């Protein structure tokens, strides 16, 4: 299988399935994951955040290569999983029950 992420981030390749292009897809994957899975991804990605941002800064937003886009999606997913890992201790937002908020307009990366 070809590498999905830039070679500098080969250590995150095993989490490349988190590189999802929409907020809705990232949130759905969070709800479908266990806390162990969320924490494993968070623990691997969080220390790499600064390096990833420094790497992506060379391209600007309009010229991201495909593997760079996937890297940014992956770190957008880190934002999504930060809530259960840092505060909720569960994948779902507490007291959110049946309520659903769907992203209907979202800038593409």
């Amino acid at each position, binding site marked *: 299988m070809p590498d999905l992420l830039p070679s500098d981030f080969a250590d995150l390749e095993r989490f490349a399935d988190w590189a999802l292009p929409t907020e809705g897809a990232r949130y759905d994957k969070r709800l479908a994951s266990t806390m162990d899975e969320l924490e494993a991804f968070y623990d691997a990605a969080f220390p790499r955040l600064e390096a990833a941002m420094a790497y992506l800064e060379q391209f600007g937003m309009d010229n991201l290569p495909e593997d760079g886009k996937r890297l940014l999606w992956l770190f957008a997913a880190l*934002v999504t999983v930060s809530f259960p890992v840092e*505060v909720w201790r569960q994948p779902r937002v*507490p007291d959110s029950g049946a309520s659903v908020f769907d992203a209907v307009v979202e800038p593409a*990366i």
Partner: protein
Amino acid sequence: MPHFTKPAEGSWTEHYGIDTQPVSYEDSISPEHYELERDAIFRRTWLNVGRVEQLSRNGSYFTKELDAARTSVVVVRDTTGEVRAFHNICRHRGNKLVWNDYPAEEVSGTCRQFTCKYHGWRYALDGELTFVQQESEFFDFDKADFGLAAVRCEVWEGFIFVNLDDQDTTPLSDYMGELGGGLAGYPFHKMTQVHRYRAEIGSNWKLFIDAFAEFYHAPVLHAKQAVSDESRKLQGVGFEALAYGIDGPHSMVSSWGGMSPPKDLNMVKPIEQKLRSGLFGPWDAPDIGLGDDLPPSLNPARHPAWGIDSFVFFPNFMLLVWKPNWYLTYHYWPTSHNTHIFEGTLYFVPPKNAFERLQQELAVVTFKEYSLQDGNTLEATQRMLESRAVTEFPLNDQEVLLRHLHTTARGYVSDYQQQHQTSTPVGISAAS
């Protein structure tokens, strides 16, 4: 012991001449009252349906479902660049003119003319009927008599509004009042990076405005969103606004915003420390050319701790301007007395790089996490209000905007009833 100065009367509520008695929420649980609101409010006020950026070129259009006002409108930038609105109905036999696949869903796009799917009648973007299939088969027929039914449409600071009341001649700029006038010149047009969320909410439309028009709930309902030491402190202090404003049917609350950036990094979560962003937006505000010279409606107390102003433009449009140079809109579109569609839209200056994009992503996702809690709480409130087990509720001074909203909405209904001599349903009045 107040932390921020209150008016000389001792409370914001009394300062604005609003009563202080317990309130009834019969106006939020009665199907009959909602039917009156549809005509008295949603067919008689200026309704914000979008932004000019949604109509980026001539021929750009979008449709808006206005269930409460019993219609759908199509909003379009015509060939001369003018923004127009029409009832979304073909003049031939009443088919919905602009839609794709699902008649109840909103659509947008760009076109040179509108063509009805049913019999192929065509309309120019200024509403003129330009083509009728087998025109000679019609009787005494003049196409000039069958243009699209126009809806009054005006633009305020880039926000597009429609008004379904043909009798009302109030210009939009007058309707927006001093609060709206005092926002003139704020560079909304520079914030074109848009994230919009939509939710079906199981409550009356006014109850969600209530939830966003007071911050009294924030330290409690959202307690777990802050780190625990900070959370305990916030609950201990509670919430006080810097200022409240009431202007005709509209209102605003001005609030402090110590989290952008926080005084102490330990007050916020690790992801917020790393990305320098959170609920209050990215801490590194982009330059939007304002300097310290805020328009008069923003931070009216001119308080150094200012963080966010929330405007309620009657009936269903909220505008939140945040100190770090971004803004948020809320729209509440009723679909019945106890359901509505909520739209929350975040607007940022387009990010220059991946880091800024992630800063915005954190603000967006934080907004979503808070809103999920707010939305669910509303359904719980609606269900119990409908039990009518308790019918009078005390509101405190930090909830002054709620009293004003419900009083205003009831006023529109009673004015409408007087003009139309309809009977008053039992029990719809302020508790006395």
